[in-house]
Structure formats: C-alpha cells, structure tokens
C-alpha cells in the first residue's frame, strides 16, 4: 500500500483474465454469425455457424457479467478514487458519442436518399438520361413504388405517425422523466423512491418494445413494408431497428440497476453505474425524437 496520503490512489489491476475471454467471445460471435449468414444466403438449412455463435454469445455474456461484477466488487472494496470515477465518467461520455456517430451514419443515409437520390433516379435536376432505366418511376417520398418493383416490391403505405409512434414517443419521453425521479431517490437516500421510479421506467421501456414489435408485425403483414421493400423500408427498419436494439440494451442496463438498487448498492456519492445507465437511456430517448421527426412525421 502506498503510504503517502497526499495523493489519491489510482487503481491499476495487476493483470486480468477478463479481456482475453472477451476477445475470444467477440471473435466466436462474429465468426459464427458470418458462417450462419453465408449459409442462410446460400440456402442451406443447417449451419455450424449457429453453434459457434451460441458458444460466442455465452462466452461474451458470461465474461461481461464477470467483468461488471468485478468492477462493482472493486468499487465496494473502496479501491476506486475520485479520479477513477472521473475516468469512468469520461469513458461513458465518449462511448455515447461514438453511438451518436453510428446513428449519424444511418440518418445521413436517409437524408442523402431523400434529398438527392430519389429525385436523381427520376431524372430531376438536369440529369435527364438517368430516368431512361425506369420510365415508370415517379420520384416521391415516402418511396412506396420502387424503380424496379420486380426486384424490390415496394410497400402499400407508410406507418401513420400519430398512432403507435406517438404512443411510443410519450412512453419514452415519460420514461426519461421517471428515470430522473429515480436518480433523485438516490440523491435523497430514499431507496423506495429509487426502486419505484426505476421499476416504472423499466416498465415503460418494455412497453415501448412491445408497441414496436406490434408495429413491425403490422408493417410486415398488412402494409407490405419490409426490409426488402426498397429504400423506404430499408431506412425505416434499419433506423428504428437499431434504435430498438439500443432500447433493449438500455432496458437490460436498467434492470441490472434495479437489482443493484434492491441490494442497496447506491449511495448519493457513489452511483456511477446508475448514472451511466440513465445517460444511455436519455441518449436512446433523444435518438427516438430524431426518428419520430425524420422517419415518421416528415417521412410519411
């Protein structure tokens, strides 16, 4: 133990088995998925990739669980200084920034297609010859009739933003407020308040996912709106799908935080895990506002 008390201690673990298992886990996951997708596209019924993916997923899940448990345990042993806390705060913030840029790529694709491509394929803007490929094509958004309906069948109609998407908007916006109430619960040292509001937030998250699943079902079975329906279906499902995946991850984070709250892990000055999960939750909320505006309202 360093004895000089004028310095804060910065904890550096001597070595760790966790990262190599995580490396093996992530490798098996993508290697298995790759085989699975190639076999699927080649029309094979069974793929050895499924088993590799399963092994990878289990390794990854087990390793991440151990990793987070280890960090929580070290925190409880009071190995972490305030400086270490700041490292985690910075790291989470930059991670969320990377997520913003990931969504930026898909939003950018949507804007580019809407602003330029749809018109250009139709020969708008002195690009006359480009409309000779598909004479029957009309440039409009949402692009329900694709240039080549034989390859990409198109959709019957877009989703009405003012029904299910509006419900989902209200659900997510409310959940951002309730997660803040839960945070107040920690700051006031009121565990029941924390648990109550956090449980409600999780309920909103799960409700959101159910509505989303129902909407997808509706789109596939009744509207003919699918991944295969051309660029409108493509951008719609990729943007809302990745968002839904992030809501799922966020909900899992909050469920872990609920478990930790019940064990009494959080105190007013030691609750970074909760705060990180709530930042992530606010982030998926903001992405949703972008989706609601650009994909649903302006997109239909």
């Amino acid at each position, binding site marked *: 133990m360093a004895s000089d008390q004028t310095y804060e201690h*910065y904890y*550096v673990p001597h070595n760790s088995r966790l990262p190599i298992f995580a490396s093996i886990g992530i490798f098996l996951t993508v290697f298995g998925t790759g085989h699975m997708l*190639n076999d699927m596209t080649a029309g094979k019924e069974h793929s050895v990739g499924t088993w590799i993916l399963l092994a990878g997923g289990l390794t990854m899940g087990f390793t991440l669980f151990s990793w987070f448990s280890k960090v929580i345990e070290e925190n409880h042993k009071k190995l972490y200084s305030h400086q270490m806390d700041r490292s985690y705060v910075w790291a989470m913030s930059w991670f969320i920034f*990377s997520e913003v840029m990931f969504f930026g790529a898909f939003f950018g694709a949507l804007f580019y297609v809407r602003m330029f491509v749809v018109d250009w394929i139709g020969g708008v803007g002195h690009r006359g010859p480009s409309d000779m490929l598909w004479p029957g094509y009309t440039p409009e958004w949402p692009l329900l009739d694709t240039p080549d309906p034989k390859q990409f069948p198109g959709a019957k109609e877009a989703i009405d933003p003012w029904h299910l998407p509006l419900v989902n908007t209200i659900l997510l916006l409310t959940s951002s407020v309730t997660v803040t109430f839960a945070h107040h619960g920690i700051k006031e040292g009121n565990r029941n308040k924390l648990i109550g509001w956090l449980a409600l937030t999780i309920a909103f998250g799960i409700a959101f996912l159910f509505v989303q699943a129902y909407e997808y079902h509706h789109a596939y079975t009744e509207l003919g709106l699918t991944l295969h329906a051309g660029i409108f279906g493509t951008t719609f499902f990729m943007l809302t799908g990745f968002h839904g995946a992030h809501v799922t991850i966020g909900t899992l984070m909050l469920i872990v935080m609920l478990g930790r709250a019940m064990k009494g892990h959080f105190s007013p000055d030691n609750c970074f895990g909760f705060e990180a999960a709530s930042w992530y939750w606010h982030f998926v909320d903001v992405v949703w506002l972008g989706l609601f505006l650009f994909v649903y309202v302006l997109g239909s």
Partner: protein
Amino acid sequence: MSAVIEEHHHDDHHHGPDKGIMRWVLTTNHKDIGTLYLWFSFIMFLTGGVMALVIRSELFQPGLQIVEPEFFNQMTTMHGLIMVFGAVMPAFVGLANWLVPMMIGAPDMALPRMNNYSFWILPFAFAMLLSTLFMEGGAPNFGWTFYAPLSTTYAPPSVTFFIFAVHIMGASSIMGSINVIVTILNLRAPGMTLMKMPLFVWTWLITAYLLIAVMPVLAGCVTMMLMDIHFGTSFFNAAGGGDPVLFQHVFWFFGHPEVYIMILPAFGVVSAIIPTFARKRLFGYASMVYATASIAFLSFIVWAHHMFTVGIPISGELYFMYATMLIAVPTGVKVFNWVATMWQGSMTFETPMLFAIAFVILFTIGGFSGLMLAIVPADFQYHDTYFVVAHFHYVLVPGSVFSVMAAVYYWLPKWTGNMYNEALGKTHFWLSFIGVNLTFFPMHFVGLAGMPRRIPDYNLQFADYNMIASCGAFLFGFSQLLFLFIVIKTIRGGKKATDRVWEGAHGLEWTLPSPAPYHSFTTPPTNMEEAHG
C-alpha cells in the same frame, strides 16, 4: 489531479512483470500492451509487404506472368487493408501506449483491462481477415475502399468475414481511443496543463477524437453492406431507390478523417525528434496545436474530393475542391515550423533525425501531389491512375511509416536501456530512403501518362518505370529485415543508454531511468520545466 500506483495483492507485492507467455495474454501494463501492439504491427507490416511484393513482381514487366488477375485483385485489396488497419494504426496505438503515460506523468493508462481487450481483439480480427484467402471464392477482391456494388452484388462470399473483421477492429479502435482520451484528460500530473503537453500527446488526443467520431460511421457503412448482401435491403442498389454513390459518401466520411488518423501522430513524433537533434525548442508550439486541430476539423468536410469523377453536382465539386485546398494552410504551418525549428540549430544527424528530416521532405512531396489531385479539372485526368498511388504512398510510407521508424530509434534506448547500433541504423535509413523513392517516384510519371491503378497488366510504354519501381520495392522490403535485426540486437544488449539518452531531449519520459521501470510514475512528477510549451 494526482495519482500514485497502488498494488493490491494478498501475497508478495509484484513490482515487475510475470514470467512466461501469460504475462502477455493477461497484462494490464501499458508498456507490455504497447510492445504487443508494436510487434503485431510489425508482423502485419511484413505480411502486407509480402503482398506488395507479389503485386510488384507481377508488374515487373508487362503481360501476365506470375499471378492470375483474380488473385492480383485480392492482393491489392488485402495489402491495403492490412497496411492501413493492421500495420499503421496499431503502430501508432503502440507508441501511444508506451509514451502517453510516461509523457504526462501518469501511472498507467486510465482503463488498463480495456486496454488489453483493445489489443487482443486485433489478432483474432486479422486471423479472420487473412483466412478469407483460403475460402471458396477467394479473399475480398474489390480494393481496400470496397466500393459497392463490387463489394455487395459482385462480392465473393468471404466478404461477410471481411465485414465482421472490420466491425471488431473498429470496436478495438474505439475502445483504444477512449482509453487514450481519458488518460490524457484525467491522468495528467499536477502542473501538466493542456498547453504544456508534448505535441505527441496533443496529436494523439485529436487523433483519438477523430477515431471515435468516424469508426462508428465505418461500422454503419459495412453494416449497410451486410444488410444489402444478406437481408435484401437496397442502400446501395438503385433498383430499390438506393444509390451506389451513397456507399462512397459514407465510406469517405470515414475515410478522409482516417487519412489524418494515420498522419497526425506522425506529426507528433516528428515534432518531438526535430527539436532534440536541432537542440532548440520547437518553433511555434501553440500554432502546431491549433494547426492540428484545424486539420482535424477540415478532415470532416472534404470527403467528396475522393469522388470527383463519380458524378456529383458541379457546385459540390467546387465546394470540395476549395475546402480541400484549405488544408494546405495548417499543413503548411506545420512544415514551416519544423523547418524553422531546424533553422540555425546545432544539428546532428542520428538515425531518428534522418528519418524525421526525410519525413518532412517526402511528406511534403505527398502533400503537393495531394494539392494537384484536389483540383477538380486536373483530377479527372489523374483519377484512379498511378499518380494517386504515388500520392498516398508518399504520405503513408515515407510519411507515417518513416515516423514510426524514427520513433522506434528515438525511444528504443528508453524502452530497452540499450543504444542501437548507429551505423546499422543509418544503413537501414539510407536503404529505406533510396528504396522508397525508387518505388514510388516513378509512379508519378506513369500515372500522369495514364497508367490505371489496380490492373495487373499495362501498356509497353510504362515498362521501364515499372521495372524501376519493382526493384525499389524489393530493396525497401528486404531492408526492413535489417530493421528487425537492429531492434532484436538492441533488445538483447548493447551500449547502456543514459536516462536522458539524447543530450537535447526534453520531456518527462527522459527523467525516468533507462530502461523505463515497469510502472512509470509511482508518484506524480513535479518538475514541469521538463514539459514542452
């Protein structure tokens, strides 16, 4: 803000590394991980280099003689991918791991376990990428820029593994960059203000920011490919309302900042070496910082200069032309500052300085050919010719790669405690210098004369220059075995290095003993006079 390292062991206090292979697998130490990155990078450099020599062998004379055109395409693709993602980027991450904590007076990287994870993803990712060479249908064959629809509709099945390899090496880069940023922002010793940081630390801070900003865009790009290939989406298919040009926009929005990711840390290295051997402080420290930040900002708004001939509106071409030319201003500031640092200095020409001076001259040549390519009407002539190949090899090989070699010679005595053999180092430099110029300078001429890139055969009038280029490539390639020999020899022994190593060196890393102890600063340093700025 201060820090000391703390050991938590129930048994003996470990102060040094473990024994055996598990030391390297389980390590959380920034120096061990830096070493792993650097060796990995060197192995990839040789692997990608062998592929380059396959290419140059085929191009030694006109006609098809050594490889099938299909395999030639796989070689150009894999050579580019391995050199960019496997050699240059990990080399700089290795340097960052070794140097950033020592330069800012930190005990280690901020997130040591994640540091290990960032590294150990890479061998798996590149093993998977290289395994595509043995798959049915062959390895990716669409060029390292993997334009759709070559990489979607017409790609071999191995493209799926290429996509996932890019995904996980992107995850590795993002985690590595988060670690660098957090270390720099949070673990500086007391008194090490931002404007006192060595330029290598500054350039890495900005590089890491660029990486976190654009690696997710690359992930989005390959995800779109994956969906188009396997799930029937139409991002890059006009029949469904998408656009192959969309691919190029998304790719180059990543790709252009990526170019600066591979050169900004090189600027940092050169800004450390030139003052040492000119025995003067760096000229214009603050302007160097601002120039680096300006280059980083501009990198986000110039991407379509890679796409002038693809059919974008004339207003777009004009905008991207002028924006691109703006980059010459901060880059010019840097070159001016390096030259002004040398002006009236007491110069000596040890191996790191030779590489650094060669960097300044040859990188500037690459910069000038970049300016030529930025001019829209001229680019219509140069596009996809060997002139482009000459341009980016001049900024990447005597640019980035020379800076890594300069850094290795400069800091190797600090890392190993031994001096390298100066005569051998200089021999390595001159062989590399001659080899590089023989290889890439003739490419300017054949490119301007119209020789297209990525084609295994060529017209007879290009034969002489191609023969020279191939000879140069073999000279440069085999010279690197000498580099390997010098480094191993230095690790095993040699004249003992002093702590300062170079009489003109400044910076906290030179206040540590040589070799640097396993844990850098067990108590934060206080002598900030050593700092730059």
